[in-house]
């Protein structure tokens, strides 16, 4: 990778990726214990947290335009997930080159409940809009996997208090986001319950170990994005932000989306959604299927980027 390429972004390295995986698996525990490995949510630039004030933003970005794109990664990942393997480019950096967007990437503890990550993202976006040295005319949010749920949760947190960033959101892209729940987590929950119910002490031990997984991954089971008022674990679906265009970009394991494997497994982790007739038509997301693009590849695929660029350029 060469830094002369304006879209290239440096890799964070194996240790940071390892810490992100650890946060995804037991991040809520790390946070409760005040462990130094817990990742606090922040915007990141070249692998380091970016202070959200006008001076730091001007130093970090060569040009601050009126159009901003924010990338939110998924479970067990960090901003490395957005890097194309061949040239180190990302969707955000490409959008800066091709459409004049100023890019920001978020890093956070993916083991925390989605609702808490959503509340934190709401605060960070508010701080960004307030600190940005010029008015933001268009804000584009791109979430991969769990990141899409965090974006929806942030919208749900910001809406009741009239968050300053909400009216600026033009597009929200959800790449392989399990809005309807993730089968793998349902399987893990089923296995946990089944193992705990056995009489064999070793099997029960495996059940307890499996049950240790984080609140964040458990939230993927039903695709929940918002805790109830009681703060209990029960989750309720939140409405789509009515003022933005929503795009669900989903992949399939095989080149033929109608292949039984693709129907059963989708992109490997998230199935292709069935569009329901009773979905709120005003804000219903547009679903685009990318055959042969697996779950992680959705975060760094030329065809997916082309779709994002086309949508952003259209309005």
């Amino acid at each position, binding site marked *: 990778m060469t830094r002369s390429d304006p879209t290239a972004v440096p890799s964070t390295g194996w240790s940071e990726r390892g*810490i992100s995986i*650890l946060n995804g698996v037991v991040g809520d525990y*790390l946070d409760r*214990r005040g*462990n*130094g*490995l*817990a990742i606090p949510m922040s915007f990141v630039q070249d692998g380091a947290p970016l202070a959200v004030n006008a001076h730091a933003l001007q130093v970090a970005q060569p040009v601050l335009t009126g159009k901003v794109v924010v990338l939110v990664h998924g479970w067990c990942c960090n901003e490395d997930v957005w890097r194309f393997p061949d040239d180190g480019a990302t969707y955000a950096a490409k959008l800066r080159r091709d459409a004049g967007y100023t890019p920001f990437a978020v890093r956070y503890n993916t083991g925390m409940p989605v609702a808490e990550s959503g509340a934190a993202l709401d605060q960070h976006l508010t701080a960004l809009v307030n600190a940005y040295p010029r008015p933001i005319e268009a804000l584009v949010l791109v979430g991969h996997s769990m990141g899409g749920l965090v974006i929806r949760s942030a919208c749900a947190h910001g809406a009741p208090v009239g968050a300053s960033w909400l009216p600026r959101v033009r597009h929200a892209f959800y790449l392989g986001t399990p809005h309807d729940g993730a089968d793998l987590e349902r399987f893990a929950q089923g296995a946990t319950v089944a193992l705990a119910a056995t009489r064999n*002490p*070793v099997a*029960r*031990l495996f059940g*307890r*170990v499996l049950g240790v997984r984080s609140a964040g991954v458990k939230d993927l089971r039903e695709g929940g994005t918002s805790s109830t008022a009681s703060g209990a674990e029960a989750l309720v679906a939140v409405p789509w932000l009515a003022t933005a265009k929503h795009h669900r970009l989903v992949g399939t394991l095989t080149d033929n989306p109608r292949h039984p494997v693709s129907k059963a497994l989708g992109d490997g982790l998230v199935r292709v959604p069935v569009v329901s007739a009773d979905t709120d038509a005003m804000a219903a997301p547009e679903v685009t299927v990318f055959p042969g693009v697996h779950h992680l590849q959705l975060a760094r695929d030329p065809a997916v980027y082309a779709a994002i660029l086309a949508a952003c350029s259209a309005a």
Partner: protein
Amino acid sequence: MDDITRRKLRGLNDLVIDAVHAAVDETEKVHNEIARYPYAVLKRITPIAMPVRMIEFVQASITGLVYRTIRVGATAASTAAAVTLAALPDDKPKP
């Protein structure tokens, strides 16, 4: 060493000791559960019930001591690592 690296290493040390304690607790629990079955059967045989109880007591005492030793050893190693980390010099400010 910079503050961020020190914080992460301290976090790793804390996590490892938490994991060791949790693993030892769970292993001891499963060990005791498995050992209980044969003793329960043997204790129903009246002529050998008393010696079986004594053997069970000795076995439980020895295994309990082994697990406690592992916990104490791990805690001591973790404390030593934390003290070493705290003693490492800070990065000198760049001129």
